[in-house]
């Protein structure tokens, strides 16, 4: 990072204090998670795409460590260090540096060292209410620093999950589609595969083996696979077990016997993903999309609508908010409501704040069971740049 002007540091400091003041008044406890984090756990959770942008290093004892690329995972770890089960409700706020390598060079909108000010709320029972509370507080904090004009962009992975659950297909197909949701190309390829009988047929596995695997008798599969490996002179080693291989072969055998996804079902999924509209029109629009297919996601739509109402009640005007069904932040760990706050000056690729619900992350970091969690952080350098611009 280039040396900063003392003035810039002072301005950021003053801005951070105002943000933290707003968070603290709302009952969020200020925490300061460690900057240096164990690389292994972090990188298991965030995935290789962020790993490529994470500064990883080895200490003199050979321990692999990293500079935190965000503060959400460190805050999860801090919470679990206090409450091993993770299920004790808690609200934290933080302000600190995060570090990300920027391929192609760091810029002022995408620096390799930047300060995040954010909040995380764990184990609150009412999800929509907590989603709304977190976003409302972030908006309040932004307004407190003087930001007046901004746009809200929403997505909701809960709606997508509800849609998949409402459509007739094997659970493993849902899992695959949900997994590929973030990657449009792979998602479309998977959808195409599930609609094609020929694509569902396993290729390259010996017929004699596939014919003997019966999806109705999964308990027999490991023995059959083991005998096949023996006979073929293939030795299994490493962490992955025989039953994992058998399970996938069984799934492949089951796929081959499964009725492919109907073209109109695939079209409905693609139609859903393409929906972009004002947030206030989303529920009606999606209900209309589902109706001809007799697909019922009313409960998820009601939750979505209730969240909007709660936001309005909390003073966040959702009248101008945009909804996009495929909107998500490519961090993989979000599971429900997601949002970004963008300003005209910086454009949609450099939001001043973002966040969402990530109900699976605490379990990934070590909690024994999933814990509801929602959080958001503000990109403070961007905010300062916008405010500087507005003042000038």
């Amino acid at each position, binding site marked *: 990072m280039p040396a900063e002007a003392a003035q810039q540091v002072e301005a950021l400091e003053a801005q951070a204090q105002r943000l933290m003041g707003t968070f603290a008044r709302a009952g969020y406890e200020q925490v300061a998670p460690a900057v240096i984090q164990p690389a292994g756990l972090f*990188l298991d959770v965030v995935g290789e795409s962020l*790993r490529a942008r994470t500064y990883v290093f080895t200490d003199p004892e050979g321990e692999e460590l990293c500079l935190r690329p965000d503060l959400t995972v460190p805050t999860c770890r801090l919470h679990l260090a206090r409450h091993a089960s993770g299920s004790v409700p808690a609200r934290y706020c933080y302000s600190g540096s995060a570090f990300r390598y920027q391929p192609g060079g760091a810029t002022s909108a995408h620096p390799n060292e930047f300060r995040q000010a954010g909040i995380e709320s764990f184990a609150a029972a009412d999800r929509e209410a907590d989603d709304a509370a977190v976003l409302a507080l972030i908006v309040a904090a932004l307004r407190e620093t003087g930001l007046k004009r901004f746009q809200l962009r929403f997505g909701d992975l809960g709606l997508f999950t509800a849609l998949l659950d409402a459509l007739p297909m094997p659970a493993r197909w849902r899992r695959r589609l949900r997994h590929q949701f973030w990657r449009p190309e792979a998602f479309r390829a998977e959808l195409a595969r599930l609609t094609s009988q020929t694509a569902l047929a396993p290729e390259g596995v010996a017929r004699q083996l596939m014919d003997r695997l019966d999806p109705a008798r999964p308990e027999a599969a490991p023995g059959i696979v083991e005998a096949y490996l023996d006979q073929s002179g293939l030795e299994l080693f490493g*962490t*992955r077990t025989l039953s994992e291989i058998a399970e996938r072969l069984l799934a492949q055998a089951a796929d081959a016997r499964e009725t492919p996804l109907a073209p109109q079902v695939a079209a409905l999924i693609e139609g859903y993903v393409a929906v972009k509209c004002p947030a206030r029109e989303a529920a009606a629009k999606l209900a209309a999309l589902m109706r001809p297919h007799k697909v019922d996601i009313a409960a998820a739509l009601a939750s979505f609508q209730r969240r909007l109402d709660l936001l309005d009640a909390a003073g966040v005007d959702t009248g101008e908010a945009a909804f996009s069904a495929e909107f998500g932040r490519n961090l993989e760990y979000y599971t429900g409501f997601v949002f970004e706050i963008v300003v005209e000056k910086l454009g949609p690729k450099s939001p001043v704040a973002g966040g969402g619900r990530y109900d699976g992350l605490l379990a990934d970091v070590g909690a024994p069971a999933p814990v509801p969690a929602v959080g958001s952080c503000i990109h403070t350098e961007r905010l300062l740049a916008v405010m500087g611009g507005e003042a000038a």
Partner: protein
Amino acid sequence: MSDKLVLALPSKGRLMEQCARMLDAAGLVVKKSGSPRGYKGEIDGMADVEVNFVSSSEIAQFLKSGTAHLGVTGEDLLRETMTDCEERVAFLKPCGFGQADVVVAVPAAWIDVRRMSDLEEMAMAFRRVHGRRVRVATKYMNLTRHFFAHKGVTGYRIVESLGATEGAPAAGLSELVVDITTTGATLRANGLKVLDDGTILESQAHLVASKVAAWTPELRRVERDVLARLGTLRVDE
């Protein structure tokens, strides 16, 4: 900085021998200057060329930083060292030796995994069962990331391996590898197989020019001389 054209050549192994033969065939006689154990050399009759004998991966670094004007090294190392390879170096001539494929290889007993798309699905299940991501041992971290991203494979973690990568899965250090292979025999001997669409790069040694080195019109003239000698040669395996 010297005002000579710096030519970086492999300092050891088969690549060094093959490289010496290529230069020989072109009538370029390379001699060590100073101590026979030293790492500098010169070419008979080309006083403007300074030869540096360094390891293959250092040659890639030299070309990347512009420390060398010309060099001979593997395409795999060049592409691994520079994500913006085409902007930093010009590939002048494939040498016809040093062939090696950079491939994705998994235990042969994984009969359910044949393509990269299988890998992504297998990785998803692996994480559910073991609570961590599947590990890929490799020294080609950048090539691996780029290729896996291109194939839509995301649920993995790279562990850096600096030698005997093919043994990592059996040693429990990783579940799969990205490694180089020429005949596949070493992979097979370690119980591994290459995925059907798992060839990342078909590599060989190349004569390469650095675009970021300090080039003067005089050095360009020297470069043309060297290339004229090498360009006409035919390499017999």
